[in-house]
């Protein structure tokens, strides 16, 4: 279950095709990860059209940049999730009115949005439990950063901390979360 590092054979083959930029590489990656990636973008940008745009740009950039991903980094899945999240956060931060206009212009898409499916409930429960074991102040920065999509400055303001402290605390919290995720549930 906890296969954060262990890549499945399928994922390995997929990554190999992707790295070699074989003809089907991108479409197979899309088939396998699009739902996850669209969920990540959607969580930040709030709606389908904006999320799909974000996904499009992020994947295209990765695909068209040679050596954008190397297996030494970790799994392709984790890398792509980070790419999409970074692209989405940039859009959220930098977009301002433009993003707002785009969101409004795409309201038709809002209407036709299919209901979202819940993520794997077993996995979700495990992650929730790991988060719950973090010290309160660490859990708070992770939640502010990842689930509330706040910037470092916004987290600092919310928690009344100096910016430098936020940076260190976020990093510490994520490392601690990694440790907690490795703990087998009792």
């Amino acid at each position, binding site marked *: 279950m906890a296969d954060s590092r262990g890549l499945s054979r399928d994922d390995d083959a997929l990554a190999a095709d992707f790295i070699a930029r074989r003809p089907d590489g991108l*479409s197979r990656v899309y088939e396998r990860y699009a739902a996850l990636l669209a969920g990540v973008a959607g969580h930040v940008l709030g709606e389908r059209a904006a999320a799909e745009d974000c*996904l499009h740009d992020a*994947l295209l950039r990765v695909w068209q940049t040679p050596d954008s991903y190397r297996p030494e980094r970790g799994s392709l899945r984790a890398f792509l*999730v980070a790419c999409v999240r970074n692209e989405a956060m940039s859009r959220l931060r930098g977009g301002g009115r433009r993003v707002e206009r785009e969101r409004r212009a795409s309201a038709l898409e809002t209407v036709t949005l299919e209901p979202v499916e819940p*993520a794997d409930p077993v996995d979700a429960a495990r992650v929730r439990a790991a988060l719950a074991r973090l010290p309160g102040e660490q859990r708070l920065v992770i939640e502010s950063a990842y689930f509330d999509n706040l910037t470092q400055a916004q987290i600092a303001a919310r928690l009344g901390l100096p910016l430098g402290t936020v940076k260190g605390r976020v990093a510490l919290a994520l490392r601690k979360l990694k440790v907690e995720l490795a703990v087998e549930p009792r």
Partner: protein
Amino acid sequence: MSAHLDDDAELYALGLLEPESRARIDAHLATCDACLRLVGEAEETALQLAALLPVATPSPQSRARLLAAAGEPAPVRRLAWAGALAAALLLIALGGAWLQIGPARERRHASELAVATLVHSHFLHEAMETRAGAGGLAAKVVYARDGSWFYVLVDRAGGEIDVDATIAGRRWLAGAALREGDTATLLARPPARADSVELSRDGNVLASVRLRYR
């Protein structure tokens, strides 16, 4: 040679860095496997957080658009062609009456969805209070008792209408109302119960209403 990463590996993985910082780090990662592994580890942990997010199903069009942009043709394009051919044959069979199938179909989809939503739920409604400068605009919000959706109906819209809601003190952009002649509608599914709904055009508020869940 740029500096090794410190806490930036984690910030990178969580999406907390500005594009300039990321570009600098990307350049470093291309030459430093130690830091690449640090970022990769942080990304694996961040990936686990994504397990708490709902997944979404992107539209088939967005897949086709991506693959076309990437110059990856084969299976998809063939499929798309088959679909287009079938659609063309259907159009011919229908005597070309459905030529506006694109936007018209979307529109029908929206109203069908609204009808289905209304028929299958318990809802309340409130008339919206118009502000000075709203012209002859009149509007009403129909909303689910459980707060899972609201449906804005505008008569004499007089142009584009933006719809916003307030949810737990925060602003939530519902979108632009869909216009049909001089009326406009929007079915929205807010992430949580909307406390109020507001109509505006070019940033000027036209009407608003507080929703009461009795």
